[in-house]
């Protein structure tokens, strides 16, 4: 019974969102506002239960680890974002956030730069490595703006443009695929879970 009712509600909201394809209307606006409200309403108690209780309340009030008061106070400085005069206080917790980013630099450098470079320096013994080599070099040259893209140099950078266009095409193809998949998911729900037409 509960499943039937929840499926009806979900189907109504799905169709309300789809109705935007015809034109903007109150059903669409209602479903959109409901989504935002429900997401926030759902997240607040969950975060309270999973963050505030185990990481602030329990250690301070039950386990008497009073040192936790310091980071809790620091976190509360974020609230001053809403004040015009004391907004600068919110920068202090941001500074700590930046420190974490600093910590990630050496490891990010390893995985996103060094390992990538090592893989781009393989012996050119097949068509794939040859393509990777030509693509990497020509695209890097394209982004070298201290020299005018003219003559032979311009022709080489043009090859880089072709590589990038193919890359964008592949990305766009995947994007279309993803969007169609989402539509398939919703139609599977409407036809299968709601109407029971897919077995």
């Amino acid at each position: 019974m509960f499943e039937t009712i929840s499926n009806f509600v979900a189907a109504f909201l799905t169709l309300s969102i789809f109705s935007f394809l015809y034109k903007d209307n109150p059903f669409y606006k209602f479903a959109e506002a409901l989504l935002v409200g429900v997401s926030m309403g759902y997240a607040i108690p969950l975060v309270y239960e999973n963050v505030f209780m185990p990481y602030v309340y329990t250690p301070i009030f039950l386990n008497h680890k009073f040192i936790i008061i310091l980071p809790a106070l620091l976190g509360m400085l974020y609230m001053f974002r809403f004040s015009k005069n004391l907004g600068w206080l919110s920068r202090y917790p941001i500074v700590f956030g930046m420190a974490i980013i600093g910590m990630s630099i050496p490891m990010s450098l390893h995985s996103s730069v060094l390992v990538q470079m090592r893989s781009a320096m393989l012996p050119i013994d097949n068509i794939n490595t040859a393509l990777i080599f030509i693509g990497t070099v020509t695209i890097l040259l394209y982004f070298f703006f201290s020299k005018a893209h003219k003559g032979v140099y311009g022709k080489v950078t043009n090859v880089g443009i072709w590589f990038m266009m193919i890359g964008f095409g592949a990305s766009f193809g995947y994007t279309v695929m993803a969007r169609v998949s989402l539509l398939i998911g919703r139609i599977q729900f409407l036809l299968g879970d709601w109407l029971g037409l897919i077995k």
Partner: protein
Amino acid sequence: MNKNKNVIKLFDRMQNIDRRYIYIVVALSIIIPLLIPFNSRTYVTKPTEDIYKKIDSFAGDETKAILMSFTHDASTMPELFPMEVSVLRHCFERNIKVFTICWLPAAAPLVDYALNTAKEDFDVQSGVDYCNFGYKPYVLRLPIMLGMGDDISKAVETDSQGRKVENLEIMKNIKNYDDMNLVVDFAGSSSAITWITYARARFGANIAAGVTAVMVADNYPYLQTGQLMGIFRGLKGAAEYEKLVDVFAAYESEDYPNGRPFSKEIIKETRVPITGDTVPYKYKKARIGMNAQSIAHIMMIFFILLGNIGYFITRKKEL
């Protein structure tokens, strides 16, 4: 001459067609293949195959486990949910310890939904065969990731039911990434890169990604460098894994009562019918979806060609 004029007129009218007619055609190209499913062939690609082989290598091993990390909400469910159910089914079929964790409040019910969907057909127990660490705040992702490299039960103290992780039976022989040796991150973003940066670069954990198709291109460089040992690519990746589980993990015969080992020849030769009742709907959802995906793609290619022909013909007229 008149004929040419008529063709130009037709293309002129088509270029100004109300886009809502195109929406109807797109909808029909998806609805019809879903209502009338057909047995299309699912080709399994290497990145999916590699994940299957890695997970399967843990079969029946008490000292190994996998971690499924959910970093998405319901908006990417059509692509990611079939992957998650297939991986869980694989683990339950082959007696592989599996942990789940999520980083977004909206992902918590999705983990439960995936576990409940997959465990219906198996005699598995929470805390023994699988363990859901539950929702952990995204801000704690970094300390948890790094902490798991030393001691999982210290990094994640309690599971979703509030039980102490260190007391759970599943934790026997499982201490850190040496034992929980594969992390599969399901996301509609590049969040697998965070696992690569912290869990792989520092502790040598194997990382795989299940991503929406739109994020595949971003993750490819990491696959090419071997930092990702495999990748599920959108709905196609989910369909491939569904097939692999059907053909190997869920296979039963006298010789192989609990599934059979992976073989390239078998997967090439075997076609699993998705019409009929041989496979439950929940385990072939991605493959049925791929039927619709294929038709929608053909239709789009047709429209792109038609649009370009129309563009060149009308441009010629203007010249």
